[in-house]
């Protein structure tokens, strides 16, 4: 499996870049950056994006794209908030978030796989629909989470690490294994590598695509619920760039936009590189506008180092 084998090496190089960044910030701000307080915050800020990016990894490996994740996240958070408000049950709220997320994902998958509409258009459409739908449900204003969710799941820790981070990490790890070691993962790679060959080989391409987009939607739904718990608010306007962030993480992690190659482990690193940069520069007190400039430049440099090392190895 190239996915696995090459993936490991990819992860190695880009992982070294991440380690170098962590080391650099630790040297520049030895008493503040490498503290458990800061690193835990960093992990828990990244955790929710990680869910979106993991789903996106599957989607991009099939040579697809999902622009709707941010909208689905918000929609699911709104659905959860309203259900919890109406029923008072946190469990029903969780369920509502998961079900609505899954439903949007399946809708994406059906339109893409059966309607054969480009994924970019479908998910751009559902992005507008889900965001607009969320705004309609709320009248355009953020809903708040019930206090017992916000102060419960939102603050809960296990072994000192936020429960939300554990949940996201566990799901990501499971999905990394599924991608690398199972038939479901194998078919995901095959479709992205050559959908026609997969079809001729007897892979149920359309059904599989519906599942992959459904998975991405489900993860976005869960992300919506966790974000509601963590921030206490549905965040109707804060998620318009989630899609780009998730896609960038996937690509930084070595997954090709043209499908067929990639790993979840790479994506994990791809999520953390921008988050670490942002956090490090904030800690160093770099002004916000400079941060944008520097993060952009370092991002390009990081991926350049990765590509360059990989090329050197290949030739």
């Amino acid at each position, binding site marked *: *499996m*190239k*996915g696995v*084998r*090459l993936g490991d090496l990819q992860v190695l190089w880009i992982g070294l870049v991440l380690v170098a960044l962590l080391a650099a910030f630790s040297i520049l701000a030895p008493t503040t950056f490498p503290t458990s307080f800061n690193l835990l915050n960093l992990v828990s800020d990244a955790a929710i994006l990680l869910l979106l990016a993991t789903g996106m990894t599957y989607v991009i490996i099939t040579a697809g794209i999902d622009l709707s994740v941010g909208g689905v996240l918000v929609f699911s958070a709104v659905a959860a908030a309203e259900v919890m408000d109406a029923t008072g049950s946190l469990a029903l709220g969780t369920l509502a978030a998961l079900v609505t997320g899954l439903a949007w994902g399946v809708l994406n998958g059906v339109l893409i796989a059966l309607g054969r509409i480009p994924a970019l258009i479908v998910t751009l459409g559902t992005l507008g629909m889900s965001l607009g739908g969320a705004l309609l449900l709320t009248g355009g204003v953020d809903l708040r989470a019930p206090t017992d969710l916000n102060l419960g799941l939102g603050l809960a820790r296990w072994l000192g690490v936020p429960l939300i981070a554990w949940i996201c990490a566990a799901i990501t790890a499971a999905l990394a294994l*599924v991608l690398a*070691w*199972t*038939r*479901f993962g*194998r078919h995901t*790679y*095959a479709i*992205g*590598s*050559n959908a*026609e*060959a*997969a*079809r*001729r*080989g*007897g*892979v*149920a391409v359309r059904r599989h695509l519906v599942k992959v987009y459904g998975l991405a939607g489900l993860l976005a739904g869960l992300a919506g619920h966790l974000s509601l718990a963590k921030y206490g608010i549905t965040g109707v306007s804060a998620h318009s760039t989630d899609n780009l962030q998730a896609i960038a993480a996937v690509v930084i992690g070595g997954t090709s936009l043209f499908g*067929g*190659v990639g790993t979840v482990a790479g994506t994990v690193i791809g999520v953390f590189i921008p988050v670490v940069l942002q956090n490090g520069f904030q800690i160093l007190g770099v002004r916000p506008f400079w941060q944008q400039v520097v993060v952009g430049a370092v991002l390009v440099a990081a991926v350049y180092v990765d590509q360059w090392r990989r090329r050197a190895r290949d030739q």
Partner: protein
Amino acid sequence: MAVPLIAARGIVKSYGQVEALRGADFTLRPGEVVALIGDNGAGKSTLAKILSGVERPDAGTVEVDGEPVAFGSAEEARGAGIETVYQDLALCADLSPAANFFLGRELLRPGLLGLLGVLDNAAMRRATREACERLGVRLASQTAPVSGLSGGQRQGVAVARAVTWARRAVFMDEPTAALGVVQTRRVLDLIRGVRDSGVSVVLISHNMQDVMAVSDRVEVLRLGRRVARFETARVSMEELVGAMTGALETRDGDGEPDGSGPGGRDGSGSGQGLGREGGV
């Protein structure tokens, strides 16, 4: 005479302006090797794709075991025991040879892991290496993706795959085009072996030596129609070439308008072609 395993009649298939098949017929009987030959662009690959469920015909009927079928997908054809080596090989370039070999039929680990869908990569690699070696094709690395294989190695993987899984029939669209001398011999031997085990073979090839060496019958396509059928034992290479190019059909002539493809001609000539059948 037995019911044909596959009988196709009047198959028509157009791509935009180009008529690839213009009412083609084809018959495959159980346990025989039929060579399907014809000039470049005659429609051989298109016919093979239609009979293996990859493309749908615009018109015409396909019968398997005398029952009309309409394969909606390659899966259905494979369900009926029909495998295909496509001319473009249809491999996933990013996957390993073993992943391609077992694509859509992956082996799972025994026990609980298998229930979870966990692949048995070691077993698949082993089986793939063995199947390729039987053809004389050596793979330098079992884990490197197919995109790093030589042309012949790739073809070896595709041929080995089809032959391994076929239960009723194999379509082989120019299976030896990229293979070396030894590998080609082995594939020809394999075709005979497969036939002897009761699986029918359709061999599409431009190599008349191979066709003569291995086939029981020959069907000839020209400009999207079947124009002749022969028993291999009773035909000469010159006749085959003549049938393919139309040189033998004096009434049909080969004075076709310059540069016109299959779509460029009208419907004449098919009757004569069939009239030349080699008494099958």
